[in-house]
């Protein structure tokens, strides 16, 4: 079995299983914690607050915009770029089609891929720099944050280095980092990708019940 075949098949399926089961386990665990009973009479809808809390956080607040513009630009640049790469890069669509889903969809043209990658890299670098430059972020960041950032960076970097698609080993290195990333995901703050809506929603629902406008 070649190294490429190993990282694309047995190791990938193992990593995907760890990713799915681990992420599901943690989400269910969070939901099972529940919430403390609120004995005060509700002045508004908790459900509406849950939804509003999720949506409101996507829009930066004016009073903080000047202080947080690096975070905002970096955050949006990275996440949009990453999702564009993940879902619309031609090699990824081919992989999803042939190995997982059995369906295909239109891919980004090469120039679109390059621009998405540049947004993703620029955003990730800005966010990581902020992590050790900003005094508050530096205090609350730990090794898990840095490993998550670097692992994501290496997944993206190795993928882009294999863009010429002319050497199997480059593709295999990319897949190896993807596998490691998937295995690391449930045990790290990368989990925010699937738990962010719960935390935002929890805050939003609490405020919603109190009748506060978000």
């Amino acid at each position, binding site marked *: 079995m070649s190294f490429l075949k190993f990282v694309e098949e047995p190791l990938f399926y193992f990593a995907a299983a760890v990713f799915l089961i681990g992420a599901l386990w943690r989400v269910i665990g969070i939901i099972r914690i529940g919430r403390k009973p609120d004995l005060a009479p509700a002045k508004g809808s908790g459900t509406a607050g849950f939804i509003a809390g999720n949506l409101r956080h996507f829009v930066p607040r004016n009073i903080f915009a000047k202080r947080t513009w690096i975070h905002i630009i970096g955050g949006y640049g990275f996440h949009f770029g990453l999702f564009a790469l993940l879902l619309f890069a031609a090699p990824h669509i081919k992989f999803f089609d042939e190995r997982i889903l059995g369906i295909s969809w239109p891919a980004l043209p090469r120039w679109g891929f390059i621009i998405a990658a*540049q947004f993703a890299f*620029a955003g990730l*670098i800005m966010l990581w*720099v*902020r992590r050790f*430059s900003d005094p508050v972020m530096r205090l609350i960041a730990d090794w898990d944050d840095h490993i998550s950032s670097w692992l994501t960076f290496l997944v993206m970097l190795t993928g*882009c280095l294999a*863009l010429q698609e002319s050497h199997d080993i480059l593709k295999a290195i990319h897949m190896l980092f993807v596998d490691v990333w998937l295995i690391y995901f449930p045990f790290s703050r990368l989990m925010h990708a699937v738990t962010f809506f719960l935390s935002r929603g929890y805050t939003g629902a609490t405020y919603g019940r109190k009748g506060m406008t978000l």
Partner: protein
Amino acid sequence: MLHRLIAAIFFTALMLMSLSTASAQSVRPPANAVNQPDSEQERVGTSNTLGTQSQSDYWRALRHGKSGISTTGRNDGLLIQSQGEDWRLIRKQYILKYSGWVLVGVIALLVLFFLIRGRIRLKGGRSGKTISRFSLAHRTAHWFMASVFIMLAISGLLILLGRIALAPLIGKGAYAIMASAAMQGHNLFGPLFIIALIWLVWLFIPGNFLKMVDLKWLAKGGGLIGGHASAGHYNFGEKVWFWFVVIGGLAISVTGILLEFPWLVENLLFLQLSTIVHGIAAVGLIAFALGHIYIGTLGMEGALDSMTTGDVDINWAIEHHDLWYEEVTGKPINKSGEDSDDDSPGHAQVYTQSRS
């Protein structure tokens, strides 16, 4: 099935197009230009190896741009571009030959300097009091540029020098893989360098124009000779580095764009010049950056703080940027190099002479 059919039609159309283009743009020499005997046997007995008529004149005319026998499109009327040979020689005999040694030489000089001078320590030690030197935007722009620059430097050096420095060690096959990866990475991060450069220049240009005090700083060798050298927010060395980044970065950006999008220029000479300028500017910037990294980390105590936390120790500010310290605090520094403030630890938020 349908997309296969479409692909087959497209492919066939492409083949036909290339055939028709090839016949319209034939580079075949005219019949009378070829006068060599067909076989080795026929050549024996002729006056020279080229037959009765030399081909030299014909090819010489082509080398010097004889029109009428060429392809269409870029460089009409030019089959052989003579400057290409000059470009190849310049690249091989100067850039490839010396650029690696320039970088090795700079590293050797820095090691030697460190061994002789050692780390430049704070004479008065750390005071425990700090003042702000760079905002979060400055630090982010700086590290954004640094990250992109390091990626480009590594990938660029792999492309430029890998064949002569790395391929003999790891083999041509392994180097081919690294070169492919480096090329993709270099092209990807290149445009980010331009964005980083614009951001960096916008934030750092205030305070980086030369003043008389910079000449005094230079005359004292930055404090190495002739005692303490006063400096504002940026000293002469930092200003030279800034302008080197601006000019070198501009050269790299413009030539990089031309190399990534070669169809932007009609004349091949621009692309050849671009590779030379790109290489020289890049090696120069990397060499300068090595010195910058040295002095910012190992070479000088307290310097790195300004780019990590954004704050510097007051003693560092007084020793290395006394005029800036006086300007932003409004406190004169006495002759012993101390301000008149109390000794309690703390932090002073001050305005920097730059955009925030």
